[in-house]
């Protein structure tokens, strides 16, 4: 059954806003999505009824908070096809990627002992990323390479922004220790060939890290079927709260990794000079945790599962095609990424000939239409495509056909306004 968009929209208070005397047309969901009432209510109910520190204290509220926190972890595990022990709460995807990079870095200094040997990096080892990565999946690896003496190698993209699989075959080899890449590009909307990349990495025993930030809101994710070693996602991009993300890792890997942040709640015993650590996920959850946010994120995946991720994906693909087809038909507009008819999520980056993206964004904002402008934290990709910046429209489950039409109508009037 197709999604009932009107019914969905009624559950998002922010969508009732008006901006510059127009109804808000929110097409910046890839930056952060709006949140349904069930998510806001779940956070509020926790804070009003159950707020307490988790994993400590014997009182009723502490027990309730722990129960809610852990059942939220189970909920995320079910959503991703993983086991609860494989789900680590983080402050976001950036924090999750840095956790990995710093854990590997600590292993490279000998921390974690023998079990952590497989994460040890040094001169001669290679970390492989792609040219289309968000800075969050690039800079932590640059820094890890700098700290350990390993080399960072990129897989390039072609003029259309497609990942160069011929180059991937060349770059991924016996020295590759980590392969980190985006499932879906946050600029192009293209879906990268996970199975082929994983197969290449497996041939050489490299660890695979998947940035699922832009796929988790749109596609049905089964991390076991994708066969990646690690994956990260961002709660606020998938109808959940700000300040919460997930690191997924295969259990045997997480249990062998040394911790990154250390402190309370992640130990089995502490002497004055050293400490023993809990297994995953507690090992990676030092200090006070984002409990209401985790509960809110569980409510968000409940919301998505009630809609059905297959239906969400179908609708999303339809919106992606409506964006790319509509934009391509406007004179002076160049759409980045996959051509009409090729797979893409509900996201389209584009250039308005002769008009800077900030001016494009300003013009659309005047019509109440929110889009993203700039380099979208993907400077190397923009440089490769010969661009300083681009404009991006991105959809979610609440996006209507009428909104896409209003957006396309607005874009069609920009060049005349700026006499381009």
């Amino acid at each position, binding site marked *: 059954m197709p999604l009932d968009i009107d019914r969905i929209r009624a559950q998002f208070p922010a969508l009732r806003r008006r901006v*510059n005397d127009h109804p808000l047309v929110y097409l910046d969901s890839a930056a952060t999505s709006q949140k349904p009432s069930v998510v806001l209510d779940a956070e509020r109910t926790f804070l009003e009824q159950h707020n307490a520190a988790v994993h400590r204290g014997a009182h009723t509220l502490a027990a309730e908070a722990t129960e809610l926190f852990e059942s939220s972890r189970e909920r995320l595990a079910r959503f991703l096809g993983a086991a609860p022990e494989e789900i680590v709460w983080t402050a976001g995807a950036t924090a999750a990627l840095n956790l990995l990079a710093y854990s590997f870095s600590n292993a490279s200094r000998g921390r974690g002992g023998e079990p952590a040997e497989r994460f040890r990096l040094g001169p001669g080892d290679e970390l492989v990323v792609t040219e289309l990565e968000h800075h969050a999946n690039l800079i932590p690896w640059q820094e890890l390479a700098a700290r350990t003496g390993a080399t960072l190698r990129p897989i390039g993209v072609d003029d259309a922004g497609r990942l160069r699989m011929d180059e991937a075959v060349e770059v991924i080899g016996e020295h590759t220790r980590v392969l980190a890449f985006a499932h879906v590009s946050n600029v192009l909307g293209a879906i990268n060939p996970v199975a082929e990349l994983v197969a290449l990495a497996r041939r050489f025993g490299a660890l695979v890290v998947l940035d699922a930030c832009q796929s988790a809101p749109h596609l049905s994710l089964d991390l076991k079927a994708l066969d990646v070693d690690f994956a990260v996602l961002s709660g606020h991009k998938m109808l959940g709260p700000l300040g919460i993300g997930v690191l997924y890792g295969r259990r045997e890997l997480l249990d062998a990794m040394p911790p990154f942040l250390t402190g309370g709640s992640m130990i089995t015993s502490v002497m004055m000079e050293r400490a023993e650590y809990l297994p995953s996920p507690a090992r990676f959850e030092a200090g006070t945790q984002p409990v209401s946010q985790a509960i809110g994120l569980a409510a968000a995946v409940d919301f998505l599962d009630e809609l059905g991720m297959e239906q969400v994906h179908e609708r999303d693909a339809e919106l992606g095609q409506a964006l790319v087809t509509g934009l391509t038909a406007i004179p002076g507009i160049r759409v980045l990424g996959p051509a009409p008819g090729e797979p893409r999520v509900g996201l389209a980056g584009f250039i308005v000939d002769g*008009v*800077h*993206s*900030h*001016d494009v964004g*300003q*013009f659309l904002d*005047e019509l109440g239409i929110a889009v993203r*402008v*700039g*380099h979208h934290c993907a*400077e190397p990709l923009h440089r490769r495509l010969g661009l*300083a*910046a681009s404009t991006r429209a991105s959809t979610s489950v609440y996006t209507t056909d009428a909104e896409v039409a209003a957006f396309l109508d607005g874009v069609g009037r920009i060049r005349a*306004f*700026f*006499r381009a």
Partner: protein
Amino acid sequence: MSRQDLRNLYQDVLVDHSHERHGYGLLEDPTAESHGINRSCGDEITLHIRAGDGVIESVGWTGHGCAISQASASMLSDIVAGLTRDECTRCLDRFRSMLQSRGKDDGDEELLGDAVALSGVSLYPPRINCAMLAWTALEDGLTRIDA
């Protein structure tokens, strides 16, 4: 002034300047060179000043950016040619206070010429840096000329 119409921001004279880009191109023998970058969008400008006998003879610039930053650089190069460094500084201060006025200051046309068309930017705080890009580069360059 209010934000009723986007033309209050993008006035016709601003759009003209964004296309004409007066002063575009670097000078052959600059007295000072400076560089500006808008960190929020990556827009850049390189600005050359040629000065002699305490007077700014000309300004040339290259770079890329939005209509507001390009128009602003174009207007700047019209205004400052022939001014002393102190007069330049006065223009700069007046221009900055106009942009920070939240719509209360329409600018001094005698001093700022076409740049008063940028007064509408003051109602769009995220765009003030766009309008200031060339001017902060000028401010930096002025510290390196004798006058």
